[in-house]
């Protein structure tokens, strides 16, 4: 930092020197990608001092004597010597060449660790939904599409962990052309569900369903796995930035069919060159079945998109305006064949209908010396109409009741009919409004490329739906204490964030130093004072630093090495469901009178209405640090990153036990023969008693600790073979464990009472998952034959799972009165308290290791008729090596079945 005054000093010297000469304004760009090169150094030929450095937009200006030549150098690029002129100077990269076909994900050149997937890679991969892209990032492996249930993202993670560890996927932000795909107001779960149909499709609080993102209109994807810019917030794990196609493109149609689905896409881009106006239109339809033989369980997706872009070039400013209108429909159907279900109805339907509108205005300064660089304002909004409809014929196995009271107190339960059809609807209308302003400023400098970004965003989530709709007297889940809930009364959630970030790039004695440092503050508004989040600001500092050593020669080729590192905090605010969970109803049967005449039966209930809101709920925070190196030699590139992430405050649903009073009536004195109506409660003897009952509450009780190494090696294309080798993979080690004490009540009944103690345990669970994989992808591109094919050898060296040792003893326990006592070893002998002692044996902590397996995937694309027709096919697991292995003397056999698909593309 103390170099800046010197730099500024030099800048002044250069600017105000007295030689009256010509002034040029130049831009330095990558010839292949047309991207501006930031921090390229410009020297006047013959001189050794740096005359200028390109700024954050790749621009520079310089005053020279006429006829002088400029030497422009940039690490990783061939130096350029050219006569000085105003305009663009193109540098050629050592690694990528013009028109290079890239069919794999590439490591971004930016400081934050990220994977970039281009259009060619997507075409070659032949995806059906966004989830298929995950194969390309380090640690990924081709998987058969599972479109029967939501696909959530998992970054840098081994093993799963389940819903209690979903903050990892919830905390991955998806941005579509800069507008968030918010899932904060997703309340599409079937309350009280115990059936697979509803449970496996519930992804509330788990982030974005990647199935619903079509890939055909995407130009470029960047998945930030490392420490993202502070521009991006409300996340813990990473950012997925999706940029869609813009500009002229021929009418394109794609028809894909694979073993479980077919997809049809059509799109066209229009461009009116003189007006700098473009319009892109596209639509797609996906129809998939989990099991091709079962037509009753399917998933369908419809997307329609229209995007307009207009730009104006001015003397001082370039202005552009984009507007996107999108519709996404995502439909799950699951029906049991009535012929196989004794004629009974059993259907599940879930539909997501999302309309999104976004407008983005951007002003860019074309003046190099201006302090103002860019202004960007984005406003986006989306409204969903989401419905789950569950209809099921219920036939009770035994007499069952329904509690219906919506208020605290005593009431009679409804005795359910033995046969009925239950209807349960979930109506959700999540609404999202997002506004963002972003300004980039710079201190004009000849020596240091710098920019200061300042911005703010405001995100509103609200759900206007009617929520859980059902008839309590004909419930879908008999016996469960659920009640309908209108979610439209939940207040809107407002998340206001501000951020500032400084980016610096400078050359120091042949080396290059890059620093990106910023801070983001986030704050939830419109929250009642009762919440500890009220008026609380979360500050996320994030820093990435890179140091590139001077370029060196390896024979005729050049090499360079960059070391980088970063650390940062990442904060994800709770969702609407976390902040406003549905009320819990605790219904205790206190009077249970049976009479052979159904009309004289009576069941009386004490209802407690519990607001399970955890007012102390905090945001989930993930701290990351990483170090990495990027080595480039003769056009071959190796990127390696070691990272650690620790999030101890992930969201978790926890059981909170407390004693509740109720009257236990003794109905034995009632003479059934004298009744002509249900018996009165008056005069029936009772005893006041208590029951320990749990309600569920969200807490910051889940820890996810990630550690690992990610690596990508990309070779230069070997010209004679037209082949390039990409090796990528990862070692991931992930620990999932509870980070708050949890309560458990033994289920055993001694006498006629369930054990009346609740154990309180620091440790409930802890799992360490590990995996190491390497994918070797050989891709061959023969331009003369218009043929491209790839063979990907995907090795999973091992996966392992191990439980962390936990104490067998509780730390505390609760008695029937709700008092909490410390545990002592003598209690393990108590007739009742011994049930609180767990009996975990050493072997439960054994390491489970699944050894090596390998799949070979083959993909081919061929273009015909002047590229108008293009045919592609893939076969995953065309060959595999998944040997059986032994564990404890048992042979475990494994299988891999090939998965293939075929597609046609027409471009007119």
């Amino acid at each position, binding site marked *: 930092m103390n170099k800046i005054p010197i730099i500024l000093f030099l800048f002044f010297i250069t600017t105000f020197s007295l030689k009256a000469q010509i002034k040029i304004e130049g831009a330095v760009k990558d010839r292949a990608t047309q991207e501006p090169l930031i921090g390229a150094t410009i020297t006047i030929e013959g001189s050794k001092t740096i005359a200028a450095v390109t700024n954050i937009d790749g621009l520079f200006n310089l005053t020279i004597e006429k006829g002088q030549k400029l030497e422009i150098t940039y690490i990783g690029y061939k130096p350029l010597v050219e006569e000085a002129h105003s305009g663009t100077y193109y540098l050629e990269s050592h690694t990528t060449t013009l028109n290079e076909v890239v069919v794999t994900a590439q490591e971004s050149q930016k400081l934050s660790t990220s994977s970039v997937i281009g259009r060619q890679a997507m075409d070659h991969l032949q995806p059906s939904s966004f989830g298929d892209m995950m194969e390309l990032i380090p640690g990924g492996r081709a998987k058969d599409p599972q479109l029967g249930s939501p696909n959530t993202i998992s970054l840098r993670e081994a093993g799963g962990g389940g819903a209690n560890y979903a903050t990892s996927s919830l905390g991955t932000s998806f941005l579509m052309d800069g507008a968030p795909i918010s899932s904060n107001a997703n309340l599409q779960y079937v309350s009280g569900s115990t059936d697979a149909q509803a449970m496996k499709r519930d992804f509330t609080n788990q982030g974005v369903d990647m199935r619903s993102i079509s890939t055909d209109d995407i130009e470029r994807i960047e998945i930030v796995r490392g420490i993202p810019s502070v521009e991006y917030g409300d996340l813990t794990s990473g950012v997925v930035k999706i940029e869609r196609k813009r500009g002229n493109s021929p009418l394109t149609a794609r028809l894909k069919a694979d073993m479980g689905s077919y997809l049809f896409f059509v799109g066209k881009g229009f461009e009116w060159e003189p007006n700098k106006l473009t319009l892109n239109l596209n639509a797609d339809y996906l129809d998939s079945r989990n099991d091709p033989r079962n037509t009753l369980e399917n998933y369908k997706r419809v997307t329609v998109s229209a995007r307009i872009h207009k730009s104006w070039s001015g003397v001082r400013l370039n202005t552009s305006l984009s507007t996107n209108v999108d519709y996404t429909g995502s439909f799950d159907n699951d029906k049991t064949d009535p012929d196989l279900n004794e004629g009974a109805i059993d259907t599940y339907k879930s539909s997501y209908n999302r309309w999104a509108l976004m407008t983005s205005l951007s002003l860019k300064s074309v003046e190099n010396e201006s302090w103002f660089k860019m202004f960007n304002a984005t406003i986006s909004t989306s409204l969903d109409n989401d419905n789950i409809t569950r209809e099921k014929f219920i036939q009770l196995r035994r*007499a069952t009741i329904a509690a219906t009271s919506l208020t605290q107190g005593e009431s009679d339960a409804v005795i359910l009919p033995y046969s009925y059809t239950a209807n349960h609807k979930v109506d959700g209308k999540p609404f999202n409004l997002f506004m963002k302003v972003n300004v980039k400023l710079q201190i004009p400098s000849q020596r240091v490329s710098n920019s200061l970004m300042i911005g703010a965003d405001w995100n509103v989530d609200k759900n206007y739906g009617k929520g859980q709709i059902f008839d309590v007297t004909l419930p879908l889940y008999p016996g469960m204490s659920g009640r309908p809930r209108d979610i439209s009364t939940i207040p809107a959630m407002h998340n206001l964030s501000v951020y500032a970030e400084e980016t610096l790039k400078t050359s120091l004695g042949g080396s290059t130093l890059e620093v990106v440092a910023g801070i983001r503050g986030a704050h939830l508004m419109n929250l009642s004072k009762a919440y500890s989040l009220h008026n609380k600001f979360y500050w996320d500092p994030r820093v990435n630093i890179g140091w590139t050593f001077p370029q060196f020669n390896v024979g005729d080729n050049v090499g360079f090495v960059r070391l980088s590192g970063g650390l940062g905090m990442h904060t994800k605010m709770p969702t609407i469901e976390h902040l406003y969970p549905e009320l819990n109803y605790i219904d205790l049967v206190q009077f249970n009178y049976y009479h052979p005449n159904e009309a004289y039966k009576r069941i009386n209930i004490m209802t407690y209405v519990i607001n399970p809101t955890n007012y102390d709920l905090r945001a989930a925070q993930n701290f990351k640090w990483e170090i990495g190196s990027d080595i480039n030699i003769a056009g071959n590139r190796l990127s390696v990153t070691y990272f650690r992430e620790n999030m101890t405050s992930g969201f978790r649903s926890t059981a909170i036990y407390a004693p509740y009073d109720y009257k236990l009536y003794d109905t034995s004195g009632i003479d059934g023969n004298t009744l002509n109506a249900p018996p009165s409660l008056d005069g029936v003897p009772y005893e006041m008693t208590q029951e320990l009952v749990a309600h569920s509450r969200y807490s910051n009780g889940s820890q996810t600790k990630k550690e690992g190494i990610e690596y990508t090696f990309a070779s230069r294309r070997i010209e004679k073979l037209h082949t390039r080798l990409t090796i990528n993979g990862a070692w991931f080690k992930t620990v999932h464990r509870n980070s708050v004490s949890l309560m458990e009540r033994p289920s055993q009944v001694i*006498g*006629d009472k369930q054990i009346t103690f609740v154990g309180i345990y620091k440790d409930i669970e802890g799992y360490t998952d590990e995996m190491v994989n390497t994918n070797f992808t050989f891709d061959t591109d023969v331009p003369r034959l218009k043929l491209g094919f790839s063979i990907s050898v995907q090795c999973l060296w091992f996966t392992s799972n191990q439980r962390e040792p936990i104490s067998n003893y509780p730390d505390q326990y609760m008695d029937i009165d709700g008092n909490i006592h410390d545990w002592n070893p003598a209690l393990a002998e108590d007739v009742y308290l011994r049930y609180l002692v767990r009996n975990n*044996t050493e072997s439960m902590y054994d390491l489970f290791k699944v050894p090596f397996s390998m799949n070979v995937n083959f993909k081919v694309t061929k273009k015909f008729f002047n590229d108008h027709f293009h045919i592609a096919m893939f076969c995953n697991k065309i060959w595999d090596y998944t040997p059986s292995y032994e564990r404890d003397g*048992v042979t475990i056999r494994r299988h891999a079945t090939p998965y293939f698909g075929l597609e046609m593309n027409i471009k007119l």
Partner: protein
Amino acid sequence: MNKFYLLFVMAVALTLTSCNKDEVAVDAPLRIYLQLPINLDNASLVNAEVILTNIETMATYSVSEFKLEGNNYMATVVVPEGRYNITANGDISYSIGGGTTTTTMKAEAQGVEVANANSSSSMVSLLFNNYNAEAGMVIEEIFFTSSTFSGTQRPYTDDQYLIITNNSDHLIYADGLAIVESKFQSDMQWELTPNLMKDAVTVSWLYLIPGNGTSVPVEAGQSLVVALNAKDHTLINPNSIDLSAAQFEFYDVSPNTEFIDEDNPSAVNLTKWYSDLWSYTMLNNKGSKSYGLVRMHSDYDTFIADNYYNYTYLVNAAWGTYESNGDGYYIPNSWVIDWVNLAIKNEWAWNVASASLDSGWTYCAETSSDKSRYGTSVIRKRDTSGILVDTNNSTNDFLPKQKPSLSK
């Protein structure tokens, strides 16, 4: 039994024999060895009486003084030459689950020859069986599959029942008898540590027939119906059974709306001692659990405190073997009056009780998803004289997959 009595009996017997047969039988010594079950720890004989019945004369002789010789208890008795049926009854004590318990045992030998050989005297070894079948009370029927609704064929599980029958020729009081369900399943074999299987059964629930000891008299040949829910289920489901006449029912008190049970005042509620699940009790409708009739030898508090059983077992999962753990209550085999092993026919892996309690098993389901099991029962066979067959081998003793006896 004292020696005087023995001598007296012998004298009478000798007199009778000599009178009837008109010839004097020669006395011969018989050495009787009582072998205690080798599977019991620290077993010792508390008392025993051996009765020898001469097959020809029907004269009886008895001996009750035994001395320890090696691992066996031995006595020598001098009786007239001939063939004898021998029965032994006695009490032994042994260690189990950290404590000591006493149990009644018996043994039998048929047609033992006693001859006066000069060189060596006759001998007989009687192996004490630690399974003490209280001759009489047996489980006659278990309707565990429950029925289905007519039309939809969906399960209706509330009409399960058991019938227990006095199979003896005398009155028996049923109160104090317990009905238990096995903790372990016959379709999932586990390697248990510690393994009490040879000495005890482990239960997942235990219900007692309440009474003061003489409250529930059951005449010879009479039965008790124990219903899951004693009501006329045909009013709800015509496919079901009228159990409103059942004498007893399982009733689980719970404040939980999910587990509500019905208490029909016309049937006496069984007393619940233990269940490993907070839900309502049901019989396993596939038949992977087994059921027994137990005469409790300790009171509730002692049982709950002393018979707790904590075990580990090896699970052979598809991905490897690991040790898991569980708990329940154990009941010494000697307390068990009758035991019926049930299984899913094609998925039988082991019997969850010692072979001395039941060396076979019976079934209703062929496979675990066999829907034809619904509405069928296992019913004990009767011999030609109408007596229930009880050879402690349910494969032999039961008729599988029968129409429930109480269904119309």
